[in-house]
């Protein structure tokens, strides 16, 4: 029990379902490193994964995992956390999962501030269904369902999260392991909802937003020592100016209470540890009003 958690504890023997070179490998590696660094025991973490190539990450991490229906990681994660607030709860999924079908839940999760970390693996494409337009696809990107180029303004996940009131907002790049590990650890440590969008290139279907392209255009907030992470309006301005081609922690608000810390009467112990039975006396008390 007191033995330190090592890679052997948190990985599974499942062979990889990803294409060689897929950005998701980097996310997996950074996540594993973070969990080891933070010494989170596998049985005390629940990963809630969406449907997509990205959602298969749950196959490789030997924690409690629930792989849900497409787009619904966040309400499920909320259910897990409320049920047992001692668990580390991590929701993961793709840009389609999170920002197309899951958009409504994403915005509402931001404003609720349940203590859940949401990590998206954003490849600007639908990988698992073989290369259709995703909400984050660049305008003009030619994909299967937009052979003449996408005509929709892309979703800007960081702006959405900031506008929706998220209390921790950051972006990583699956190739920048050091920064990514730091971000994941910070997100997992934040008490409240943390949203970490990770740029994770799809080498098979996305020929526009490649590693090389990102390396060219991405700027890290690390390189801007004057940047302060406690100003939502400034974070929004930065996200808008950079068109979100930026990595690092954009914003955090540590003063906001988590949802579960605000619910009147909500148990500070995990609900799973509560006794469920009422006493006959309690029961009579409940009925008294109705007589």
């Amino acid at each position: 029990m007191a033995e330190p958690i090592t890679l052997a504890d948190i990985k599974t023997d499942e062979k990889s379902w990803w294409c060689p070179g897929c950005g998701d490998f980097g996310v997996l590696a950074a996540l594993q490193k973070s969990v080891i660094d933070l010494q989170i025991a596998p049985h005390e973490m629940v990963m809630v994964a969406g449907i997509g190539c990205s959602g298969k990450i749950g196959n490789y991490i030997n924690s409690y995992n629930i792989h849900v229906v497409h787009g619904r990681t966040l309400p499920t994660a909320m259910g897990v956390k409320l049920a047992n607030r001692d668990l580390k709860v991590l929701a993961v999924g793709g840009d389609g999962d999170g920002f197309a079908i899951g958009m409504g839940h994403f915005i509402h999760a931001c404003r609720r501030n349940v203590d859940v970390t949401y990590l998206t693996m954003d490849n600007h494409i639908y990988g698992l269904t073989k290369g259709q337009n995703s909400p984050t696809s660049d305008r003009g990107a030619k994909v299967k369902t937009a052979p003449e180029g996408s005509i929709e303004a892309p979703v800007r996940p960081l702006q959405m999260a900031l506008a929706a009131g998220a209390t921790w907002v950051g972006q990583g790049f699956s190739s920048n392991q050091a920064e990514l590990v730091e971000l994941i650890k910070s997100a997992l440590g934040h008490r409240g909802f943390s949203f970490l969008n990770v740029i994770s290139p799809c080498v098979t279907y996305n020929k526009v937003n490649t590693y090389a392209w990102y390396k060219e255009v991405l700027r890290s907030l690390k390189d801007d020592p004057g940047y302060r992470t406690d100003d939502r309006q400034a974070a929004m301005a930065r996200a808008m100016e950079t068109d979100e081609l930026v990595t690092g922690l954009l914003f955090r608000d540590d003063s906001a209470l988590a949802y579960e810390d605000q619910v009147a009467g909500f148990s500070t112990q995990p609900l799973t540890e509560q006794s469920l039975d009422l006493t006959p006396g309690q029961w009579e008390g409940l009925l008294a009003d109705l007589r």
Partner: protein
Amino acid sequence: MGEVGWKIGGDQGEGIDSTGDVVATVANRLGYHIYGYKSFSSRIKGGHTHYKVRIADHPVRAASATTQVLVALTQETIDKNVQELSPGGAVVADLAFSPSLPAGSELTLIGIPMAQIARQIGNPLTRNMVAVGASAALLHLPMEAFSAYVSEKFERKGAEMVSQNVRALGEGHAAALAQMPDGLAVRLPEVAPAHRLLLTGNQAVALGAVRAGCRIMAAYPITPATDIMEQLVTLLPPLGGVVCQMEDEIAAITLVIGAGYAGVRAMTATSGPGFSLMQEGMGLAASAEVPAVIVDCQRAGPSTGMPTKNEQSDIMAAIFGGHGGAARVVLAPGTPEQAYRDIGHAFNLAEAYHLPVIVASDLSLGEWLQTVDDLPYADVSISRGSLISQAELLALTDAYSRYQVTASGVSPRSLPGQAKGQYLATGVEHLPSGKVSEDPKNRRLEMDKREQKLSTLSQSEPGTEYLGPERSDVLVITFGSTVGPVDEAVALAQESAAVARLQIRRLWPFPAAEVLAAAGRAAAVLFVEQNGQGQLAQLAEMSGLHHPHTAHLRRYDGTLFLPSEILTAILSGRQLATAKGVS
């Protein structure tokens, strides 16, 4: 046996609801049995509404056809309802609108300046209490009981409110007494005071959930299920639990799945449109074997339909609605007592079999106040089903296999937080370990295992309730709140025929053997249900019932079944059988 029908009508948003509640509550406390029924529209203010309280010295489970006392707050109330007043009945009306009865009516009209009295009292909102006071007079019910209840009700709002309302009661009472003619045919039998409950099915569901250890409720508001959430929002926090109002029904069901996966008893409640949206989520619960309890308080569909009218038309969707034939259990309570027991049972079944359990309630059951002897503590007990303990997990030599194939189909479940219990729960087909797999042989085993759970359940408990003689001329088959008017009709029919009724308590897995056996002992079968398609009959037929003398009585116009029309159907069902020489 005696009873009186009291009814109040007026514009929506004018407090008709709470006025009816006062009369119902006080009469219940005095020892009468109550069935309250409201007719309202999907709007907030305006439009005509009425509330009918049936007050009886015996248990009642249905609305009655006739009214003895009508309280009219508008002329429209008189015009719309006067035809159902029994001879010798009375109309109590606010003089403010110069009420009039149809020419030639022999009813008594008692005009009281209700609004004016209320204004004099200094609070126009007390108008309805004037009406209640007048009603007390007409019903010969003791004023003290009303004053006591009204004082209680308004206590939180301060002494002035209490005294204004009590005064309104008194003035209404006095004004009515002054005008009451001798020949009034309104007579309530005497009853002994009692300590029964007065509640709706929705309240019973909320209470049952609490009794059963539910600690998380997630939902999105929708008529007529919202009540359940609104009840739980006050009941759960004192127990450390929480109600989450979600952004939609998909979020609600998937939250419930998350909580169920993590080991807490969680539920959602919705009605048709929201229920349709939950189909995909329920499939996940079935496939990943996560307990979930879903209440569908049905209303008239399809689509938005008639949100404030009763119907029982979601049952095929409840059973067959998910793609891929996802397994579910569907229970169907018909009374508040059954609703209480069923929700408790639903949590036990969901955790015993690791699947979604739907409690198919309906608007009539959910919303109308009924007198109930009790909701006995012992009628619900908590059994958490097949869980693997931490000690067992640590003692395992091989890795834990969440979806192990077993004879019953049930495999012991670990909960997050338990060491060595980690597994992947997924809606993708998987191996016993939880790992995804497309292996054909494994697929068959896991599919069969999941289906096996339904067989195991079918064999372990009955799914019907039978009432009446063993052999019958007519067997009435019904479910949900329709059992109320059916039972009254069956009781009346007993005088002239051997009539039995079978209430389907579990719609799925369908209790085919019980239904076939019961029908086999009946000369004719009559299905009574509130939907246009005859969904219950379809289910029975699909399950092998082909009785040569089958009749159907269906209602899908939003109005309630009256025992009288069911009686007629029973009697003609009997003729059907005898005419063909079977009886």
